[in-house]
């Protein structure tokens, strides 16, 4: 992380190349979180770009600690802004869930995987944004509860309950959609 601190210090004093090295490092993370939050690549691109612009401008306010969590907090705000705009001008949910997966498997398997991914994405989009973000940061990005709490600006207890409730709700959605692995669990009850 020495290397990252060095880049951050240089970026703080206006070295754009240093900042762009940081962008390079985090753009996949930020883009994927935005993509799962918004369900649509064009909006995710905009939110990602806004995140890095806001991060560059606000770099002077970064007070150390996890830069990743700080950056994700900005990304979360960019996504919430977009979701607020959408509430005024809603997108059809089906169109919003078109995050298909490129796959090297057989056409049938690729199709099934794509269907599954779309159904999961649809389920995510039905969660309240706070639960969605917590589940994405945990299950897609593998962050610890501690770091999620920092990225969401909230307590560990709240993170715990957001993830728990988000997963429970997602489970209902996936069970209702008749997805095979979950139908087996449902049949047991």
């Amino acid at each position, binding site marked *: 992380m020495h290397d990252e601190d060095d880049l951050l210090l240089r970026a703080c004093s206006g070295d754009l190349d240093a900042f762009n090295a940081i*962008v390079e490092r985090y753009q996949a993370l930020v883009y*994927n979180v935005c993509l799962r939050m918004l369900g649509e690549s064009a909006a995710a691109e*905009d939110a990602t770009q806004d995140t890095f612009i806001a991060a560059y401008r606000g770099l002077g306010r970064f007070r150390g600690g996890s830069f990743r969590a700080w950056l994700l907090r900005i990304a979360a705000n960019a996504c919430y802004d977009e979701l607020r705009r959408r509430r005024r001008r809603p997108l059809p949910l089906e169109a919003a869930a078109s995050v298909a997966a490129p796959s090297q498997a057989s056409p049938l398997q690729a199709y099934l995987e794509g269907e599954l991914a779309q159904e999961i994405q649809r389920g995510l989009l039905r969660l309240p944004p706070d639960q969605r973000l917590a589940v994405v940061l945990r299950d897609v990005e593998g962050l610890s509860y501690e770091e999620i709490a920092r990225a969401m600006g909230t307590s560990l207890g709240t993170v*715990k309950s957001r993830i728990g409730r988000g997963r429970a709700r*997602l489970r209902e959605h996936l069970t209702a959609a008749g997805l095979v692995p979950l139908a087996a669990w449902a049949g047991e009850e």
Partner: protein
Amino acid sequence: MPPAPLSHHLLRRHLSAYLDGELSPGLRRRLEAHLSRCPACRRELAGLEAVARAVASLPRQPPPRSFALAPDAVSRPGRHSLAATRLLPVTAAVCAALLAALVAYDVLRPSVPQGGTAAIPAAGEETLRGGAPSVPPPTPGPAGPGMTLAPARPTPEAAAPGGPPAEGEAPGEGLTALRLAQLAAGAAAAAAAGGWAVLALRARQRR
């Protein structure tokens, strides 16, 4: 001892965090003891695990392009543009309010008790006196309107700091100063609002 329903409900809420290894050792031991006796909680845990696995199976997409910032797309880290975008609307609003106050002052002036032509030069003189403190005191006659209009004084003062110095008491000059103040406030409001609109548009184009 059979599991108490209360502990079942309390422990059930921790299944998701248990799955992530985020429970304290004490709570984890109690939950594990409960799990060994409670098939419903085992099923719940398996369901949550399946959901977590399903979400984790979502493919990570490569970023469609580089998000590196171009030098002309951003100003240096700082709050210049942020300050500008926040200050401009405030400036526009203040100038617009000033203009409204000046116009209201202009419109309401004839209704001052003294009425007639005498009120006009007096009011104009008050305006100018605010702008240039070196001016001699007003003629004793129209003290009434001066008092009445006192609350309106600070506005023209701020609006035309560089206004022409008051010399005579001709009604025309007072009116001119007032018009100039109105013009200045209007122009400042328009300029601030225009600048703000340009900044907002540019920000929107960037997205």
